[in-house]
């Protein structure tokens, strides 16, 4: 069985209308640029996107928002782009905001076969509305359900033909968690190598979780907040 596909178009070929997608990345760091571009090209709509952020106006998920391909965002922090705000206020776009750690842990739960997890995040806030609260050792926790996503789109630094993935620096973020959580997981990598070229002790995502992999191209890797210090 060959997991390697030629490009993003082939990788996302069967993502249809109204699919639920997970997209890795934090801000614009470590986002599946090639898959997003292919989705924009394909023009598929009605998507539910689980992603920590929603990109900016002209990059990341913002590109899909501009084309009104997104029905619902499930995120922890959004609104870095004007189009997002416009669609939200006009009611075109549905948004579910959840704590960042809850987002991460609900992905982990899916990848680890745990149907639900307990977290203290949001206890006593509007996030707790309608959720089961349970006390352990004198502390309250919310019961949060594992995510279910049709596809997970993740970006890694290197990958091999078995689907094993290695991430670079903080571009890791949600990627390994979502990689584990997709019913179908699609990985794009900056460098695709033959099986055996990655150190088996240093693989972050075992290939068992990855269904399709391809070497992406033309990575822009845009910086959202360029901050520098004076050279000494």
């Amino acid at each position, binding site marked *: 069985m060959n997991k390697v596909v030629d490009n993003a178009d082939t990788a996302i070929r069967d993502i249809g209308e109204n699919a639920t997608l997970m997209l890795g990345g934090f801000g614009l760091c470590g986002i599946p640029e090639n898959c997003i571009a292919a989705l924009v090209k394909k023009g598929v709509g009605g998507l539910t996107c689980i992603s920590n952020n929603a990109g900016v106006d002209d990059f990341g998920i913002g590109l899909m928002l501009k084309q009104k391909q997104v029905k619902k965002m499930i995120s922890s922090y959004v*609104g870095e782009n004007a189009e997002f705000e416009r669609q939200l206020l006009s009611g075109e776009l549905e948004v579910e905001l959840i704590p960042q750690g809850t987002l991460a842990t609900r992905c982990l739960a899916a990848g680890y076969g745990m149907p639900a997890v307990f977290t203290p995040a949001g206890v006593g806030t509007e996030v707790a509305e309608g959720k089961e609260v349970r006390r352990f050792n004198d502390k309250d926790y919310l019961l949060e359900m594992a995510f279910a996503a049709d596809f997970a789109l993740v970006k890694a630094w290197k990958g091999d033909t078995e689907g094993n993935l290695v991430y670079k620096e903080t571009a890791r973020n949600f990627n390994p*968690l979502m990689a584990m959580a997709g019913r179908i997981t699609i990985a794009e990598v900056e460098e695709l190598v033959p099986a055996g070229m990655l150190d088996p002790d240093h693989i972050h995502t075992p290939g068992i979780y990855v269904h399709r992999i391809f070497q992406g191209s033309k990575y822009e890797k845009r910086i959202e907040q360029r901050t520098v210090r004076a050279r000494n």
Partner: protein
Amino acid sequence: MALTKEQIAQRIARELQDGFYVNLGIGIPTLVANYIPAGMNVVLQSENGLLGMGPFPPEGEEDPDLINAGKQTITTIPGSVFFDSAMSFGMIRAGKVDLTVLGAMEVSDQGDIANWKIPGKMVKGMGGAMDLVASARNIIVAMMHTNPKGESKLLPACTLPLTGVRCVKKIVTDLAVVEVTEQGFRLLERAPGVTVEEIKAKTAGKLIAAGEIPEIQC
């Protein structure tokens, strides 16, 4: 005289201890990093997946794969380590972060905090704030004592949607250092030249000011 934002950060830095792992929020809390005493080993956690956050990079050395939770380009230091977001919030929930410093719009005298949402305004989201306040063993809020309209931000009860309940341990404002106790706010220190009466007047929540209240040493 009221403290500047830098002075608030400086005062909070005095709460640091050698070996502390610290998570600093956006705004004034970020400035605390500039006042870590020389020779003290304090490791900064960035909840997007980094322990051992270094300073901003020199111009031209920005790395798009290396950012902090505020999405700013940063650097690593010797001993830095990267991890995924589940482990990041895992160590936060497990209480491994010794100190969390964050900003707030309101704090109640029970230690409730509101800092993520203003009804009627565009809501960007809570990010990691709800996880941090629900989990951290030691939370210090850095903020102005009053809002731009001059209204107290230290309240008997928060009016804005909550980020977390009964979690704030200490507040450092431009006017005072306040501890949250079972009995309400307890005034620990006052800004140089600022009177207890002024602080009382600008604190809507219950404030206990017993005995001599020393001036803040930054």
